[in-house]
């Protein structure tokens, strides 16, 4: 496996688009984290004034920082998706997938090299979110540090969500083999799921939506700020790690489909 990753690293280290998209992804996470407090305070300002609350909400303190930043960071996984699609479709447009096999890779080697990259990219993104949240939490309120480990499982949920998304991109790239068409298909499907989300927003039966690959389950359950309002009767839904089970199943289904296609297709 290490050998496979070394080879993939040689392929990517001098590939400019790889670094650009990775940088855009990380920059977006940092931008979200640094402006989150400002925007939320502006948006809900009037509402808060009505109920006579202070504008200093603990939204970026431990442990709520995990919930809020992971929820938002899921939206910028798109850059990583483009990166994965470009990386896999390149192998077909340059015909290098074929040459790798001729040179002595098994088709399984090719599959594992790509799956490993998806996992590593998801892990990298999760680490960036982790460091950003840790920094943001400490800067916002050092006294909240004792709650550091509360809700830290949101990072795990984030990791699964990015993995399922990137596995889907890998599948699209292998099926379509053209980067432009694959990226357009990815956008089309994303819009479809966002449409479903919008249709059912503010309704109580959201659970079924989490059975769609992209919507499980972070961005279905929107963080509710009403919990900051005293005596609020709104139901606050917390997400447990078990809610990612459908997403994990999707990852396995996608990888199996990729394997079947790779095996059956002529390269």
């Amino acid at each position, binding site marked *: 496996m290490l*050998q496979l990753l*070394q*080879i993939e690293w*040689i*392929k990517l280290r*001098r*590939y*400019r688009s790889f670094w650009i998209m990775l940088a855009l992804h990380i920059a977006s996470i940092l931008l979200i984290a640094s402006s989150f407090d400002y925007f939320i305070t502006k948006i809900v300002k009037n509402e808060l004034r009505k109920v006579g609350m202070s504008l200093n909400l603990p939204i970026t303190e431990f442990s709520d920082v995990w919930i809020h930043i992971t929820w938002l960071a899921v939206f910028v996984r798109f850059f990583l998706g483009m990166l994965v699609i470009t990386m896999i479709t*390149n192998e077909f447009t*340059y*015909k*290098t997938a*074929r*040459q*790798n*096999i*001729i*040179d*002595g*890779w*098994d088709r399984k*080697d090719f599959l594992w090299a790509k799956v490993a990259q998806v996992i590593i990219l998801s892990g990298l993104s999760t680490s960036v979110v982790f460091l950003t949240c840790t920094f943001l939490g400490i800067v916002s309120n050092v006294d909240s540090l004792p709650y550091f480990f509360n809700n830290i499982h949101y990072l795990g949920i984030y990791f699964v969500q990015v993995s399922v998304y990137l596995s889907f991109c890998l599948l699209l790239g292998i099926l379509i083999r053209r980067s432009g068409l694959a990226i357009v298909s990815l956008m089309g499907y994303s819009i479809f799921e966002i449409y479903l989300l919008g249709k059912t927003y503010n309704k109580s039966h959201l659970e079924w939506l989490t059975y769609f690959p992209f919507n499980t389950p972070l961005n279905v359950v929107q963080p509710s700020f009403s919990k900051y309002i005293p005596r609020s009767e709104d139901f606050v839904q917390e997400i447990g790690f078990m809610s990612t089970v459908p997403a994990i199943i999707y990852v396995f289904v996608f990888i199996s489909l990729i394997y079947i296609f790779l095996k*059956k297709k*002529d*390269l």
Partner: protein
Amino acid sequence: MESVLTINHLSKHYGKIKAVNDLSFSVPKQSVFGILGPNGSGKTTTLGMVLGVINSTSGDYKWFSETPKASLRRKIGAILEAPIFYPYLSAVDNLLIVAKIKQADEKNIEQVLKTVGLYERRNYAFSTYSLGMKQRLAIAAALIADPEVLILDEPTNGLDPQGIADIRNLILDIAKQGKTIVLASHLLDEVEKVCNHMVVMKTGQLLYEGKVADLLGNQNSFEVKAENIQKLEEVAKNWNVIHKIDKLNHSLILACNNDITGTNLNKYFYEQGIILSQIQPHHNSLEKKFLELLNN
């Protein structure tokens, strides 16, 4: 004879089109093996199947008498169709990828780059290379693991005469080291000049398998010229070692007994009062044979 590659009833059908149909042959060890056939005869499809990138419809093949698997391909250096590399990477990085896949010593990179004459340009991106340089890099990649078998598919495609000559010499040098070479080509000249065994394919089927020399037959022909061509023809007709005379525009093709050499011819005609202005061995019979095979 021990064979490196054995193909058994291999077929590849795309719907109704039979790209390769019930093909069987074997490549003897240490031979320079030509696969000759016009464009679209199934040469590349056949090589694609034995290299594991095209799934066969039926039939099977064996490398080194073993059931094919990825690790066996590491002992084969192969170029299929055009040279394939990552365009944004340098020659060194591209060869590093190949060396790692083949689990070859990375120190070989420098040496193979020198062999094909690309060492000076090793740090330039592949996309900046000319066609000839790309072909040479492909050969370098095929050589990197010091393979037992080299598979070259149209290796001189698009090269200038100097490039073609260089690659031919390279192939002959490699063959001298006791390696097996499989050369697919639609150029008769190429196969005739470097190969000793060959198959001829047409529309996915085998037309001929055997030694190149056997296909040519034991023909010993010379092309001769003299100022007085009529007299030359008369004298030739009356000489019993010559069994066939073909007339070209300004010369004659003399098919002679096997023990006749150019010296014999020259001496005999001189004694008969004819001075030959040109005498050279004649080889267009492979082309004839090839066309005969294709038209049958």
